[in-house]
């Protein structure tokens, strides 16, 4: 296959996200391509339906070094046992020196198939661990492929188990086929090793942000002006468990007079879930106190917030938490993915842990715990300011964008 057309250096294979959907992985991909301008990229966008694709608009200005964008449909594979047999339809795939799949699942499956034919090197990056997201309650995977349909709710437990097993097998297959495996945190790397990934292939390349972008927000200490504002920054989707945030807000209204709550993030990715959240807020009497602001540029999200909350059921290493920390905002996050590591410091990195806590970690699906943590910060501005400063130091020390880009630049060059 090589030599038939002008090749790009790297072909990214990803499901449903960039450049049509806003979110952490999309932001990461955009920063990766734009941050490595000396390499050129092509992109295979896997999507559950072509109709959906046509309706989608670009959510990002494409960097000039993204040379080719090809959409590939995943369709007609509705049963778990059919998935491993999926193959792309008659579409001309980009030629590249390196394949880089951004998840296991369909993306890893396709990368493995291309590698089998062409012997191109295959790099795998996992942000969230795919099969764990399904086990944790996701009904849909990134590309829009629904593993649990509404009509199937009655047999949901068995079906979920079946899909989890299927995607877990695909993950093991991708680990075996990949030449290098990267993930964002140590907890994920351990999971990959448990699933049979060879240690010599695995590495952690943490996400990164540019702290300078949030420096002006950090000039204002949190919880200092008496008009408290608590925000969740994330997509309004079930995996973010926005309902927990709404219930926590309800618990806080009597105890923090005048407090405002805002959900900052796109509301169009799961309109039914957004409606459910609006209904819940109304039922709990939060009209006027809690608003959905929609999507805002990252630099505008944090300056006006006193506490940033994330109530997700599953996460990888959320950029929104890193951004809030860079902006000197204390965070209240659920104990999923790398969230604890971000707030308390990485295990085994004593210097990082010595920086102290950047906020509080609470159990998932626990509005009471979320509310108590927010209350502790709002009632103690000195504590909020201290935790905000700790987060800012940690983000600057451990999670810089340049470090992430240098990690991928080295990894690509090893295989190019």
């Amino acid at each position: 296959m090589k030599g038939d057309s002008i090749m790009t250096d790297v072909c990214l294979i990803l499901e449903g996200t960039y450049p049509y959907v806003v979110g952490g992985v999309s932001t990461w991909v955009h920063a990766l391509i734009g941050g490595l301008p000396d390499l050129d990229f092509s992109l295979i966008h896997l999507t559950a339906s072509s109709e959906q694709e046509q309706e989608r608009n670009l959510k990002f200005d494409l960097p000039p070094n993204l040379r080719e964008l090809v959409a590939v449909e995943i369709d007609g594979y509705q049963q778990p046992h059919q998935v491993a047999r999926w193959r792309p339809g008659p579409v001309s795939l980009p030629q590249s020196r390196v394949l880089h799949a951004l998840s296991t699942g369909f993306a890893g499956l396709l990368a493995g198939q291309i590698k089998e034919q062409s012997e191109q090197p295959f790099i795998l990056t996992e942000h969230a661990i795919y099969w764990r997201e399904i086990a944790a309650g996701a009904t849909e995977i990134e590309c829009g492929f629904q593993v649990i349909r509404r009509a199937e709710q009655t047999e949901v437990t068995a079906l979920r188990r079946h899909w989890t097993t299927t995607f877990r097998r695909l993950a093991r297959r991708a680990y075996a086929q990949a030449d290098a495996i990267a993930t964002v945190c140590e907890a994920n790397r351990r999971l990959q090793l448990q699933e049979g990934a060879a240690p010599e292939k695995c590495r952690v390349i943490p996400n990164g942000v540019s702290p300078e972008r949030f420096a002006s927000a950090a000039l204002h200490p949190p919880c200092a002006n008496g008009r408290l504002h608590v925000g969740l920054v994330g997509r309004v989707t079930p995996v973010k468990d926005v309902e927990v945030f709404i219930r926590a807000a309800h618990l806080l209204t009597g105890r923090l007079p005048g407090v405002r709550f805002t959900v900052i993030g796109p509301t169009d990715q799961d309109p039914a879930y957004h409606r459910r959240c609006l209904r819940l807020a109304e039922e709990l009497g939060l009209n006027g106190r809690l608003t959905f602001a929609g999507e805002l540029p990252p630099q505008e999200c944090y300056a006006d917030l006193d506490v940033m909350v994330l109530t997700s059921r599953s996460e990888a290493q959320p950029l929104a938490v890193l951004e809030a920390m860079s902006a000197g905002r204390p965070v209240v996050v659920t104990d999923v993915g790398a969230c604890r590591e971000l707030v308390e410091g990485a295990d085994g990195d004593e210097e990082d842990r010595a920086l102290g806590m950047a906020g509080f970690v609470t159990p998932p699906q626990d509005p009471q715990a979320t509310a108590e943590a927010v209350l502790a910060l709002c009632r103690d501005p000195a504590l909020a300011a201290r935790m905000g400063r700790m987060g800012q130091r940690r983000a600057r020390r451990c999670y810089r964008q340049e470090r992430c880009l240098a990690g991928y630049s080295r990894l690509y060059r090893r295989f190019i």
Partner: protein
Amino acid sequence: MDVKDQLVIDSRLDAVAEAREWLVSRTVQAGVSTKTINDLKLVLTEALSNVVRHAYDDEPGHPIELSLVVDAGALTLTIHDYGRPFDADSYQAPDLSDPQEGGYGVFLMHNLMDQVHYDVSSGTGTTLTLVKRRKDSPQQ
């Protein structure tokens, strides 16, 4: 078709894309085969990344001069910079039995090109000359 052309870019990684585009358009125009163009593109990327990173220490605002000559017999690409001279004597090929992440740029050039020559004798930087013989059939 013979082609002769020159380009000057700034010492920034995002200018590498401009150079790559220039190289592809000129070599396509000259009827060079796709396989050779793909190899040249990779070699150019590595050579320019080395200049930006090592000769100019990632400092923008310095010129990198490129020239390309394609005739029936060969393709010659030269890259001149005014930064810290490249010490070709100290270069060691990477140990492929123990993969490392880095140090492959010069190795790639030697593997994909027929001639690779560094000249620092002018005293004003480094000229890298890369030659690829045209044994491939022209693309029409």
